[in-house]
């Protein structure tokens, strides 16, 4: 009880200052310096319609490389935290009971369409609100759907490793190509195309596809790892 009171006291102080500070920030009035620059320049320099994508993948592409790494690390870290040596003759941990037949049938129909949606989202990352992360997340969700529907649905971690490694390497290599060509790391070296065209934005599209694959495989791996380890058979501590 004292703790709760104390926490509330602290939070009211912190809250007071946060409100005080943020309410001094004018709301909805003007864009900032760099924001303006990006909006003006990204359709001209990069021919990318989505300024956010232009920032994420090009102007601040380095952040995104880091972001991809964070996700990769989360997957790796999760794997290492959850890692458990399999006992001899131990079977794959499975859900207790089967899923509804109706859901199973429905998933079969929806699965390819959701995958396609994911693909669409990351392929059109520079044209629409989508992007590699969003598309990848959608694809991972499709895997989640299958994992929910089928107890025996197995994620092939080998494939996942291949995909995420290659996608990551593609991203980093695209960066190095810039260096090799005597420019800067991650600099766009492809023609920019026309605004609102699928083939615009130079390397942005390629990077986002790589990101999409990477995110999809990583999130899938994460989901599968968590589910596998959370099942009753896996509960027994070694």
């Amino acid at each position, binding site marked *: 009880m004292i*703790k709760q009171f*104390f*926490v509330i006291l*602290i*939070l009211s*102080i*912190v809250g007071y*200052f946060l409100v005080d500070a943020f309410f001094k920030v004018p709301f909805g009035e003007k864009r900032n310096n760099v924001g303006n620059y990006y909006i003006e320049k990204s359709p001209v320099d990069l021919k990318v319609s989505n300024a956010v994508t232009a920032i994420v993948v090009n102007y601040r592409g380095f952040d995104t490389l880091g972001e991809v790494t964070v996700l990769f690390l989360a997957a790796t870290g999760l794997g290492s935290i959850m890692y458990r040596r399999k006992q001899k003759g131990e079977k794959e941990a499975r859900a207790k009971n089967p899923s509804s037949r109706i859901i199973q049938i429905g998933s079969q129909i929806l699965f390819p369409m959701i995958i396609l949606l994911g693909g669409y989202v990351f392929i059109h990352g520079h044209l629409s609100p989508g992007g590699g992360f969003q598309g990848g997340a959608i694809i991972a969700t499709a895997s989640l759907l299958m994992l929910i529907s089928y107890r025996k649905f197995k994620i092939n971690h080998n494939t996942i490793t291949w995909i995420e490694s290659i996608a990551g390497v593609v991203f980093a290599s695209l960066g190095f190509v810039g260096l090799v060509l005597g420019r800067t790391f991650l600099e766009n070296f492809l023609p920019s195309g026309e605004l609102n065209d699928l083939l615009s934005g130079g390397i942005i599209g390629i990077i986002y596809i790589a990101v999409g694959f990477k995110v999809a495989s990583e999130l899938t791996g994460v989901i599968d790892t968590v589910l596998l380890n959370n099942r009753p058979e896996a509960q027994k501590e070694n």
Partner: protein
Amino acid sequence: MNSLILLLILVFGGALLSYLLNKFLPILRDGFVVLLMLLVNYVFFTMDSATQIEFEIGGIHLQWAFSSAAFLFGIIVSILGLLSITYSTAYMQGKDRLGYFYMNFLFSIGSMLGILMSRDLISLFFFWEIMTWSSYLIVIYSGKDVDKRGLKYIVFSAIGAYSMLMAIVIIYGFTGSFLLTDIFDSIFAIKASYQLAIAILLMIGFGVKSAMMPLHVWASGAYSGSPMSFTALFSGALSKMGVFGFSLVLFNLVSNQNWLINEIIAWLAAITAVLATFYAVIQSDAKKLLAYSSIAQLGYIVIGLASGTYLGVMAGLFLAVLHAVFKGTLFMAVGAVEKQAGTTDMTKVSGLIRKMPWTFTASLISIIALAGIPPLGGFVGKWMLYEALITSDHYYLVIMVFLSSTAAFLYSYRILFGLFLGQEEPEFAHVKEAPLPMLIPMLLLSGISVLSGTFPGFILEPIQNAMVSFGFDPRLPNIEWWQLSVLFNSWGDKVVLQNVMISITAVFLIALTLITWKGYKKQRYVTTKDISSSGEIIQAEDNMTFQIDFYKPFERAIWPLLKRKIDDYYTDFGNGLEALFDLVKRIYNGNGQFYAIYVMAFLALLLIAGTKYFGF
């Protein structure tokens, strides 16, 4: 090559080499270390007194040279170093990890030379710390209770070292330099209160090494626990580094007006002398006894220095040199007993005079020197001290010194009696005289003791040089060292000892010869059982050797004074601190959520405080 660098390379390089030699060619080790020290002595004594070197390291300007004061202490270090390492070759025979031992031994010697040649406070501290850990490594080399004893030593050394460091950086903060020459010039500009602080901090630093009360508690354990061959150096030379430091403080680093500092030091030293003597008296282990005696003796030395008068300082330095000589001998002698008889417990060992006559002789001479009995050097030193104190109106100090000197007779006698006289126990029948490498250093040092009484001039001359560097005018008559002796000259118009000394010396020598000779011949050999007990059957637990509880009445008399050892205060203080620290530990209560609350509470606090800080 600059002989200062050569000296350091010799000792430190030799230290590493001795380690390697012990590993790969142990047979050459002993010869190597002795030769090395001979070489060191050669380089040291043939060194041009103007030799110096200046350089910069890590942006700090450093300067090395031997001042004449440093040279005086350097003599102690190099000679005692040579002798004690020679002694070691026999004493340490058969012990393991000798590479470790000699390496640290030589590190100690090297670091002492380094301290002495330092003309800047950083080098001084640098070598001071090397001295600390190298000697520490020997303190914990063997024996029981190393945990406690080593820890005590290192903790006190650390306290001392860091007080010193604090003083050093404060000095630097005011003067902008670490060079002693720069500091001497500008030190007087510092406010008196800061001067006092600096002096106190430095006193703590040097006081630890010279075992000044109440910083002495490490000393008895460390002295008695180390191998005796090292203790000889430890007590004889290493502790003198503290004295050397005191002289720096007293004569170079505080202005003369600050009489308070002198008084404080003198009184602390006096208390040290008295209490340590009392402790010495009640010890039953010869090593412990000598350890406390060392502490007491260092007290005299410091009193002399702190008196600040010409004669007093001279007395202090004289006693310092002499103490190195006779205490070195005594530790070596006790070491010899330990080596041959296996123990230094005076309640067990007895009657070794026939088994180890040379050791006994060396001990006897040293004891005489120690106790200040004429005609040996101790007497000369003490006499000078009394006179210095009286002429500077320090009557209470005189009483203290006198009290302590008197009590010193008690333990002096006890050690002689305890180890060498009395009944011969059958279990020590096999005991033989110590081997030559041990005897020679002892006898050489005894020789110096004897000489120091009759020819104090050979010591007083370098002392006078040293004092010149402290800012005293030379007062000794300008004559050869051998002329400056009780036999051939008066030394100044104030002290009229000559005739007395001559006669006393003559009587003493005759008596000594006679007593020893007769006593040796006429001794009746009895066993412990051979005691008439008026019809009662003696039980095993009955204490029939009066070596136990030797000074029981005396102990009873001084007990109230000693009942609660300073040690205990430290222990209580430490325990209190630890309990407090355990409370602090509770901050990390293991609940991660609390840690998160700390974070937010801290944030809230900062935000509130920020209103003041940033004017919002």
